[in-house]
């Protein structure tokens, strides 16, 4: 069983005039234990709504969710005590210093002051710990949010856009921190729109669109679902090469003088052997990999246009 199990989760909002908006439309999701799990989706796809449902901030209209093996609606107290979370921009008491904010929340969970100081140090906030939260930049607020999560020493971290507002150096720090936490055996569930970051940071991803999961699994598998890359073949007679490869069962398209081999089963050696069998000797076979951004745009665009 996964650390997060979501089945048929629906959330509908009803406006003043009875207008219904569907934020989640029967979402199914399974997040395995350990490692970093990326949660992707365009704006309004339901990422934050899912996180809010998991943390009991909003009530789903239908469906069920289990977090760390516990029903997150019935035993919310147990779930929250084992989960560290940031939902959108971290919000703390504006007149209190960063340290005082953390100390107050630490008091709720019986966390010792030494862990507060350690969390501040880990997130690089020690020097500004006594400044009021109001004076913090967005990046510093994110760091304080991370510090609050870390001092809790949770089994599961749910982070909603943790790199939001951070400068490039900050983004790298967060990436390294998240990877380290994942490598320690914790599960980090991270929603983000920074696809390159997610690709570098995550072991698995789920892509959400219009409140439904359109792709999920290890990053490599998801890349495959989106085409998984292609082979660019340059040969003397591209039209004949296209026919030969098509007859051999490859998925082939033409792009000018190049023959593009896509889909599963593409293998440079097999393509080369097949063409050689027909008396054609390609002078170039290049493997082009597809990044998460391409897959994301393809999957979410396909859903949207469909």
């Amino acid at each position, binding site marked *: 069983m996964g650390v997060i199990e979501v089945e048929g989760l629906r959330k509908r909002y009803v406006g003043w005039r009875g207008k219904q908006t569907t934020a989640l439309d029967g979402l199914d999701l399974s997040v395995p234990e350990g490692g970093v799990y990326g949660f992707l989706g365009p704006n309004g796809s339901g990422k*934050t709504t899912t996180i*809010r449902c998991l*943390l*009991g*901030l*909003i*009530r789903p209209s239908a469906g069920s969710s289990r977090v760390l093996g516990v029903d997150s609606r019935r035993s*919310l*107290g147990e*779930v*929250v005590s084992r*989960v560290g*979370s940031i*939902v*959108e*921009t*971290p*919000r*703390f*008491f*504006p*007149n*209190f210093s960063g340290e005082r904010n953390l100390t*107050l*929340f630490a*008091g*709720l*969970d*019986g966390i010792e002051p030494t862990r507060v100081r350690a969390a501040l140090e880990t997130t690089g906030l020690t020097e500004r710990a006594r400044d009021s939260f109001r004076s913090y930049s967005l990046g510093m607020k994110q760091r304080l949010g991370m510090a609050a999560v870390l001092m809790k020493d949770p089994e599961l971290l749910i982070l909603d856009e943790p790199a939001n507002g951070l400068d490039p150096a900050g983004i790298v720090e967060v990436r390294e921190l998240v990877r380290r936490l994942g490598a320690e055996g914790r599960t980090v569930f991270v929603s983000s729109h920074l696809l390159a970051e997610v690709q570098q940071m995550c072991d698995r991803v789920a892509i959400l669109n219009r409140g439904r999961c359109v792709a999920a699994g290890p990053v490599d598998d998801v890349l495959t679902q989106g085409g998984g890359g292609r082979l660019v073949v340059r040969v003397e007679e591209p039209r004949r090469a296209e026919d030969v490869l098509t007859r051999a069962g490859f998925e082939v398209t033409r792009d000018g003088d190049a023959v593009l081999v896509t889909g599963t089963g593409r293998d440079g050696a097999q393509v080369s052997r097949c063409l050689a069998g027909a008396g054609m000797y390609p002078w170039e076979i290049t493997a082009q990999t597809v990044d998460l951004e391409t897959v994301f745009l393809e999957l979410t665009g396909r859903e949207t246009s469909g």
Partner: protein
Amino acid sequence: MSALLAVELRRAFSRRFVHVLAAMALAIIVVAGFGVFLSAETEAPAAKARSELLETCQYESDVARCQAEVPTVSEIESGDIFVVSDDPRFELTELWPDEPGSFDIGILPTTTLLGFFLAIVVGASLIGAEYRAGTIETLLVWEPRRLRVVAAKLLSTAVVALLLYLTFQTLLALALLPTAVFRGVTEGADAAWLGHLVVSLLRIGAIVAALAVVGGSFAVITRNTGGAIALVFAYLIGVEVMVQSLSDGLNRWFVVPNLVLATGLIPVDFELTRSAAAATVLLLGYLATLVAVTAGLFRTRDLG
């Protein structure tokens, strides 16, 4: 629960709004203390009466004869000669006269009216600010038991309002004490009077705390400080007055008349529709209903 309440209280007492309110109240108390001390009349009633009589002599043609006819202080004090004159000096018992229907003359009861108003504003502000800053959400991902959270929040507004009310009433009394001791009268301010004062302050302090809960509850319902204050005062000043003008019979069920009865600070011509105890029970019923509605909403409502 105690940790949650401690967090709420620390947060409440760190609010800039509370600091500004406290600074303003302290400034007014200091000014009032000095002002009353410096401007206080020091003459005893008999001496004051003789001075007033002597002043009339200035307008007589035969000043010497007039002055000779004006009774001496000891003659006035002996009571042989009747002279009408109020004691102009500050009396300590003016702080809280030990008699019913004395709302118009007590100093602390008069400031209590301001306390009622501020309690609603403080209660609404303490909770409304949380919605504005979004910290309710942060709190709920640490303590998801919403009934506990809302109970701690409402309780903390009550405690803050009560402590502020009692502190400022005590400070105001202490600021006026030197005037009574050194330039005024402390007669009548015995242990019985002091006991009455303390009991009255605690009783009205409890009502102030309840009003802070009302302000806080409306802030939870409206998720907004301004909306909460507007709603409470629109009801108290607008709805009750308007409905009362349509039907006098409903008056005895309204909040304001029952609040007057429960405080015991009853104006002379006020209609006594029920006892103070019955009014208190009725108001507690209203408060319990409001808190139940607030808690129910807070428990079930989506955040974000």
